[in-house]
């Protein structure tokens, strides 16, 4: 008879010799797993929200610039509009949007502020950015040639101006002269104060004209779906435009990348802390179970069971116990997630959530591969932890089974 088939039923029944202790251990393991998975899911949801907030602002999943633009983001480092092989690759990837960006001064009749003037193609911009949908008053740009300007509502307040008024925008043109143009405010957008203070938008061709760029642009922002193809897509773009600088969001938005890394690290730390607590519980209860059965283990050895088989039996008990606990923890986690299938509304924490770089709504989702990795880690480490009580059991003296007296 196969040893595992022989020891399996014995291990299962042995667990229920003391149901209260077994249930307590199961509760420790399942709550521990629930806690780790909950933490993992929430951290990932927060990181995803933070990433989406950041990338769907202007960054996109990647950008293409002229060489040295990232070091000196001025019109001096512009590039031609995409064509040929680059255009072919971009069209095959998903959404992309060309932009002109230049440091500028915006002036109302009362005040002046330093901003970044962005010339955009509104139709393409809507595909890579959420800003066009965040209009609080007025409208977004109608087309690449739109001569209006969209500014942040907060910036309008700082400039003491309002929708429908004109502002002066000054920026250094490609030929070196200071270009100056008056633009009517056609829309006010809402976002974080920092974004509202920094960016103003006008039509792409209007900006190119003002800055004397002809058909040149400052950057191309692109999105790729699904994310899994990002590395290969960036590779394809680099091959299509070897003279340009193609970077993905992990380089362009280090904060979003740090959030992603931070969530993974923090989950790992939490997993370690929870595992240590669980391990203490598992070892404690298993040691108690073993000490209570010292005589029985001695008797089994006296009957001819090898010490290795004793170790196997105790490990099997632990494997079953932790396995059932892990499964219960996953079920508990799924039940917890169910009410938040449509998203976890953090509207009541809006200000704090904004500070933390996340959105108002988190979308917690249990990734099967991540959950499996966490559960397997806990199970394997938990079973390994049980090696201690198992070895203690194997050291039980068979003489004790004889009730030996000298």
């Amino acid at each position: 008879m196969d040893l595992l088939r022989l020891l399996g039923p014995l291990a299962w029944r042995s667990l229920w010799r003391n149901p209260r202790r077994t249930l307590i251990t199961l509760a420790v393991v399942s709550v521990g797993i629930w806690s780790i998975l909950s933490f993992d899911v929430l951290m990932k949801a927060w990181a995803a929200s933070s990433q989406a907030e950041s990338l769907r602002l202007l960054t996109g999943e990647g950008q293409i610039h002229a060489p040295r633009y990232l070091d000196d983001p001025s019109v001096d480092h512009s590039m031609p509009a995409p064509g040929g092989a680059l255009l072919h690759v971009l069209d095959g990837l998903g959404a992309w949007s060309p932009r002109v960006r230049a440091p500028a001064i915006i002036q109302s009749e009362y005040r002046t502020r330093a901003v970044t003037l962005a010339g955009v193609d509104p139709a393409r911009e809507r595909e890579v950015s959420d800003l066009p949908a965040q209009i609080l008053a007025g409208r977004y740009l109608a087309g690449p040639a739109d001569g209006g300007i969209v500014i942040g509502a907060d910036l309008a307040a700082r400039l003491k101006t309002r929708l429908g008024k004109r502002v002066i925008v000054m920026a250094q043109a490609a030929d070196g002269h200071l270009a100056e143009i008056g633009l009517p405010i056609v829309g006010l957008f809402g976002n974080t104060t920092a974004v509202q203070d920094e960016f103003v938008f006008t039509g792409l061709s209007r900006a190119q004209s003002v800055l004397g760029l002809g058909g040149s642009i400052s950057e191309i922002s692109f999105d790729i779906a699904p994310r899994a193809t990002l590395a290969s897509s960036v590779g394809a773009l680099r091959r299509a435009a070897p003279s340009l600088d193609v970077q993905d969001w992990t380089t362009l938005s280090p904060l979003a990348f740090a959030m992603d890394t931070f969530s993974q690290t923090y989950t790992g730390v939490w997993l370690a802390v929870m595992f240590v607590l669980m391990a203490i519980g598992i070892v404690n209860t298993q040691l108690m179970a073993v000490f209570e059965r010292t005589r029985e283990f001695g008797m089994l050895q006296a009957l001819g069971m090898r010490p290795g088989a004793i170790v196997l039996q105790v490990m099997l008990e632990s494997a079953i116990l932790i396995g059932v606990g892990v499964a219960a923890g996953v079920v508990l986690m799924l039940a917890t997630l169910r009410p938040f299938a449509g998203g976890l509304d953090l509207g009541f924490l809006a200000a704090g959530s904004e500070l933390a770089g996340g959105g108002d709504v988190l979308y917690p989702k249990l990734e099967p591969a991540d959950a499996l990795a966490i559960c397997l880690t806990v199970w394997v480490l938990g079973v390994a932890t049980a090696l201690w009580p198992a070895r203690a059991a194997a050291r039980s003296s068979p003489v004790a089974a004889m009730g030996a007296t000298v």
Partner: protein
Amino acid sequence: MSAIIRCRGVSKIYRQGLVDVPALRGVDLEIESGEFATLSGPSGSGKTTLLSLIGGLDRPSAGEILVDGEEITHLAAARLADIRLKKIGFVFQTYSLIPVLSALENVEFILGLLGRPAAACSARAREMLHEVGLSGLEQRRPAQLSGGQQQRVAVARALAPGPAIILADEPTANLDSANAEELIALIARLNAASGATFLIATHDMRVVAHARRRLGMVDGRITADERAGAPAAA
């Protein structure tokens, strides 16, 4: 008949604190195959210690022990476990059944350790339980059996693999008179039927009365060795 158990100059000294306590003092003993022998003597005379050493549960401080021709005192733990599994059956004073297994499963378990197929284990376990008079009680767990019934299961478990030697340590100590008498008769019958060698450490004179060889121990030495004229009978 040849000696299936052979002890030569076997001593065992236990250390208690700073004091050496001799449990066995140079025991020389030969038990022939198929014998029904008892070891009797006062508490502390070394009966259980001698059984433990013969069964490979402990190692002597000096001397050598041969079981079925194999010197066992220096064998590794795993090899000793194999010898116990295949050649030696144990019956303990306290029954020592696995409480979460039924009577049938307790017997099947030891056969399973031998690697026998499940169906063969089950058939042999039923046969042995029938042999010890427990037909119909196979599915009962130890807690659902009387002391006498539990000890019968232990005897069935010890004999199931067909060992050459059965070592029993005070098998009747926890039984009432009626159950003790039945168990003694059963052991005597099984000794005659199976041909296995029985060595029983006991205070119980009813067990001694059934033995064909009666060994007496005092202070770690064999002090008496009598052979009954007539074979043991059930």
